[in-house]
C-alpha cells in the first residue's frame, strides 16, 4: 500500500465512527520500489493530497526523509520538491502491518501489500 492510497482511506463506514481519518499505520515491513518519475503527473496530484496527513504518515513509519512539512510555493517548477513528493507518495510501499481506526482502535491488517478493509455485518 502506497502512502497516496493511505491518504484517502478512512474507517468512517463503521458504525459509530464519524471521521475515521487519518488511519494510524503500524508498519512491520516497508519496501521501496522505483517508479518512473513524471513531474506533470506529480504536480497535478499534489493539490489532491492532504499534506499534513502524508507527512505524519511518512514520519510514523520512519520514511519522512527530507520531505518538507509544507507544500513549497511554485512546486510545479521545483523538480527537487516534486521528486521528494514522488518518492513519499508512490515509492514507499507498506507490505505488512496494520491500519488502525483512530476512533475505535479497530485494526485492518495489511498483508502482502494489501489492506483488508472488509467489515463484518455487525460493524456497519
Amino acid at each position, binding site marked *: *500500500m*502506497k502512502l*497516496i*492510497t493511505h491518504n*484517502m*482511506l*478512512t*474507517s*468512517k*463506514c*463503521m458504525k459509530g465512527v464519524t471521521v475515521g*481519518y487519518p488511519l494510524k499505520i503500524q508498519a512491520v515491513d516497508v519496501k521501496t520500489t522505483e517508479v518512473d518519475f*513524471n513531474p*506533470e*503527473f*506529480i*504536480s*497535478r*496530484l499534489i493539490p*489532491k493530497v492532504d499534506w499534513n496527513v502524508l507527512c505524519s504518515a511518512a514520519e510514523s513509519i520512519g520514511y519522512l526523509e527530507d520531505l518538507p512539512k509544507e507544500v513549497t510555493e511554485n512546486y510545479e517548477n521545483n523538480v527537487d520538491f516534486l521528486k521528494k513528493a514522488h518518492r513519499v507518495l508512490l515509492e514507499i510501499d507498506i507490505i505488512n502491518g496494520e491500519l488502525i481506526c483512530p476512533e475505535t482502535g479497530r485494526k485492518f491488517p495489511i498483508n*502482502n*501489500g*494489501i*489492506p*483488508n*478493509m*472488509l*467489515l463484518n*455485518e455487525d460493524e*456497519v
Partner: protein
Amino acid sequence: MENGHSRKQGRKLNKKVKKAQHIVEKQTGITCTNNVTKNLVICNCGLVNGLSEDIIYHHFSAYGPLEKIIMITGESCAFVSFKTADTAELAYRNINGKLNLAQDDKPLLLSFVDRLPENSNCTNDLPSGLTVIDNFVTEEEEELLLSLVCFDEQENSSTLKHRQVVHYGYEFRYDNNNVDKDKPLLHGIPKECNFLWDRLQKLGYTDNFRPDQLTVNKYQPGQGIPPHIDTHSAFDDPILSLSLSSSIVMEFRHENGSHVPIFLKQRSLLIMSDESRYNWTHGITPRKTDIVSLESGLKVVQRCTRVSFTFRKLLKGECQCRFTKKCDTYLKNCADELVNHSASQLEKIHVHEIYENIADHFSDTRHKPWPNVVDFINSFDVGSVLMDAGCGNGKYLNCHKNVFKVGFDSSASLINLCQEKGLNVITCNCLYIPFRDESVDGVISIAVIHHLANSERRLRAIRELVRVSRINGNILIYVWAKDQCKDQQKSSYLKQDRRNRKKDDLPQEDKIQNVTVKESNITLPIHINRTQFQHQDVLVPWKLKDSNIDDKSKSEKLFLRFYHVFDEGELEDLCKKLDNIEIVKTYYDQGNWCILLKKLKS
C-alpha cells in the same frame, strides 16, 4: 345482627352472605369482617355482571359521600369506600339483600371488609411526560376557537363511526393511521390558534413548538375513541389536546397493566410527551357520565358535547424514540434488516465465496478491457485519481499510465492477482467503500452492482460511488442487461453459444431448475448459459474444470453466481433517486446497461 327481616329470612341471607364472603376472600385475598368499617364489598356482582361505577355511585352515594369505587377486572365483586363508617353502615343496612341489582335480579350481598384491595394497576400517578394545564384558555378564547370550526360544511370534515372530525394542515388518514406528508391541505391551522404556542412557551412548557396539523373531534355524550398510540413515524413529540365545551375522563394504559384515568376539565390543555406520547395508549370510554375522584370524594360528572383540538407536528425523518416495541419506524427497520441480512447471506454464498473459488479461471477469461470503458478512462487528465470499484483481476488498472488508479474488490483471491501485477488495490466491499468523501476524480463500476441482492443495496452502492467522487467527477456504471438481444442483435454473450442456437433461444420454462438458498430462505432459478434471461434474479452457472492432476476423471465443478440482471431503464431509475447527480448518458453496450453520471454537489 338485626336487619329487620324475620329471623328465618335473616338466617337464610346470612348463609348466602357467608358463602359469597368466602368467594370474595378466595378471589381477592381481602378478609371480610362483621365489624363495621367504612369499606364495603359487593360480594355477588361486579364488572363481569355488567355492574358499573355509575350504577354503584348512583345507589350508594345516596347514603353519604364516597371515597373510592374499585372494580376488579374479570371478577364478580366490587369495593365501595365511604368517607365514614357510619354512612357505610347505613348503606349496608339499606342495600344488603334488598337492592336487586345482581344477576337475574337477585339482591346484592354486602359485607364489610378490613381493607380495600391494593389497586396497584389504577393509580393517580401521571404517566411520565404527561402534563395537564387547567384553564389554559379563557371562556372567551374557548368561544373563539369553537367558532372556527363548522363540522358540516368544512371540506375536510367527516363523520366517523363514533364522532365527527375536521382536519387542518394535513389530513389524518384513519385507514393507515398516518398522514400524507406530501399532501398538505388547502387550509393550515387557523392563525387564531397562534396565541396558544406563545402561551405555552411563556409558561415554559415547550421550546418554540409550532404544530402544523390539527384534528378537531366532536364527541357527543356516549361517544368515545378506542385506546391508541399516535403513530410514532407520523408525528413529533409532543402532542397537544385542548378540551372545549365539556370535561371528560381520558384513560391512559400501559402494557404493564397500569391504568390512569385522567380528568380533562373543560378548557384544559393536555400535553403528551415522551413516554406518555410513545408508550401509553390513550382513549375515551364511550359513556354519558364520568366518575371523578375529587378532594371531597367521588363525583359523577355528566358529559356534554365535547370538542377537542388535537395539535400535532409532522415528524421529519424517522422516529428516534426509545420505546421500540411500539415504534413503527423501529419495527419496519427490523423487517428491512432481516431482508438485508438474507441479501447479504446470498451475496456471501453466491457471489463472494464463488469468486474466491473461481478466481484463477475467471481471471484467465478476463483479458480484454471493454473499449468504451477504456475510452472513458483515457478521457481523464494527467494526475487524476481514478477508482475501480470492483476491479476483479484489475484489467482496467493498467490503462492510462498518467492517472493514479486504485482498485478494490471483495474477493481476496482476485485482489491477490492484482497485487502480483503491481497494481494499487485493497480488499473491501462496495457497500462500504473506505475512502474519504470526494477523494477521487472518477469512478468505474464495471459488472459489480448486478451482484447485489436487493434494490436498496444496489442504490446504496451507487450512493457510495457518488460519495467518494469529487464534485464534477464522472462515474461510469455497467450492469448486465436482462435483454441480451437488443434490437435483434445478439450480444456477444449469446453469440458465444457453441451450439449456435439460431431461433430457439428461449429455454423452456420446465427445463429451468430452481435452487433454494437455505441461508437466505429464497429459491432462485438457474440460468441456462448463453440464452436470454428469463428472470431478473438468477443463479448463473460457472463450470470450473478440476485441475487436480491425481484425478483422472477430470470432473467439472459447478458454481452458481447470483446476478440481478437489469431491465431497460432500471439503472436510470435507481440513479434518479440521488439528488446530487446528473445523468450524462445511458447506453446499451454488449449486453450491458451503462450509465455515466456526473456528481453535482456533496
